[in-house]
């Protein structure tokens, strides 16, 4: 899967209330959530973002609530990948579980600028900044997490396991 897009840059400690404010959590419809994605940081983000675009942020991206609505909103808004220096742990799990690609790279988070054109090789963990002609390496995804991705998300992975156990 090829990931390539324009960069939207955010700072440190982007919290889940900024990603999707709780006032919109009376629904879990991905399309509705996408319309309010990043609203309290940039009210026009959902209108400006184009399919395939990439979010780059600093440390502790996705801190706060466990709401899976946060990665769902980002994914449904058309964002193809989030690159950050670090991720908060519940957001990290949620992103894998719902199939939103995320990569940790301090170098990429530091050097990529808003508006840059960037390509991402997920399997290899290589981030290519087309605008600046630079490449960065991302932290390797643990093998178990790769299995979840290979299965097509946690639900498929669990369904396979339950079949093997003879529960279904």
């Amino acid at each position, binding site marked *: 899967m090829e990931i390539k897009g324009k960069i939207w840059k955010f700072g440190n*400690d982007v919290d889940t*209330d900024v990603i999707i404010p*709780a006032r919109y959590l009376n629904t879990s419809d991905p399309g509705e959530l996408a319309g309010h994605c990043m609203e309290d940081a940039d009210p026009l983000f959902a209108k400006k973002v184009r399919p395939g675009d990439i979010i780059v942020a600093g440390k502790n991206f996705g801190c706060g609530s466990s709401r*899976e609505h946060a990665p769902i909103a980002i994914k449904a808004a058309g964002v193809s990948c989030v690159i950050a220096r670090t991720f908060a742990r*519940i957001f990290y799990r949620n992103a894998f579980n*719902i199939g939103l690609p995320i990569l940790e790279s301090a170098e990429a988070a530091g050097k990529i600028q808003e508006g840059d054109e960037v390509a991402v090789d997920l399997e290899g963990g290589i981030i290519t900044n087309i605008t600046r002609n630079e490449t960065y390496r991302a932290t390797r995804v643990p093998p178990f997490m790769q299995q979840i991705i290979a299965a097509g998300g*946690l639900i498929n992975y669990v*369904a396979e396991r*339950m079949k093997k156990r003879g529960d279904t």
Partner: protein
Amino acid sequence: MGMTITEKILAAHAGRDRVEPGELINVKIDLALGNDITAPVAIREFEKIGVDRVFDRERVVLVPDHFVPNKDIKSAEQSKILKEFARKHGLTHYYEVGRMGIEHCLLPEQGLVGPGDLIIGADSHTCTYGGLGAFSTGVGSTDLAAAMALGETWLKVPESIKFVYYGEMPDWVSGKDLILYTIGRIGVDGALYMAMEFTGPAVEGMSMDGRLTMANMAVEAGAKNGIVAPDGVTRRYVEGRAKRPYVFYASDPDARFAREYHFDVSKMEPAVALPHLPENVRPVSEVLNITIDQAVIGSCTNGRMDDLREAARLLKGRRVNGNVRLIIIPGTQEIYRQAMREGLFEIFLDSGAAISTPTCGPCLGGHMGILAEGERCIATTNRNFVGRMGHPGSEVYLAGPAVAAASAVMGRIAHPREVE
């Protein structure tokens, strides 16, 4: 090499003698929890797995608490999904309005969680039960769905950080002040992916309510879990309450800690976290000039009896400032009744406060106390992010119940001794 209490609980639930930090393990869970925001997504995912029942209908707990009593049609539709799922699967622990509470106040009170348990919940403040000596952590809805089917989940064994609190607690300083101080010291990602173990004489001398408050905010430092080793206080709390057998674990003297902090509580004063991160912590005496429009006393952090009693101590015989709305939200029906019995409602009503049925409500900007642009609130809740309690141009200041009550009286952030 010894093990920490967190490692011991994880090992026991993985069917192993020991586990090492960094390992990915599969663990059996004692309880899985969801609420009216997270469970609808979990139920949708659960139904994709293709199983016809949950792993144990007594161990899947659903508590509609965030937007209840339902604030609008959409939230009513969300709550209805929980009710119908609970009925279909015969869940024994589904809590309807009138019999419910804020989930993290309710589960310990009802004895559904106990020492040595391993609990996951689709709510980040599930880490609260660490106050009882349980391993307890927040996950997302899909993880909850998988756990509801399997009765298991996967976890990375966290490294532990040890916090030692010593010295005599000054008057008006509570568990909330200790945890705010701690987050102020280490930052909102200071314990990222790690376990925070709270120890020392000040914690040993603390009530269960105070310990639950401290563990509750471990996630605000990025931690996977917060935990207090169970002791006599724990035993007195769980006896006659626990619905299942429990186990007391403690860290070995030679357990490994990634870091250790020693804090002298006798030098602390009540703390306030300024907008817009819980790490922006100052001693209250440094921020006394900030006027407020609203004060909220409640939430899974500070909606328990100790909190209401402390607020009542300051509000007794005093009036809420004319420019301030004070909203008090007892955490559960049981707490509501107890507060009424002790005469606290009389004190709150005489002071000019509003008393709400249990709900998460304003804490997450849901309902029951939303802020307008430019308004400021002092709250005993746990997060002060941009827009957390309403308009993105509003502000939330986090504090304990004593500072919140004193501030409500003064109309500005106040030290409790100014009112006393």
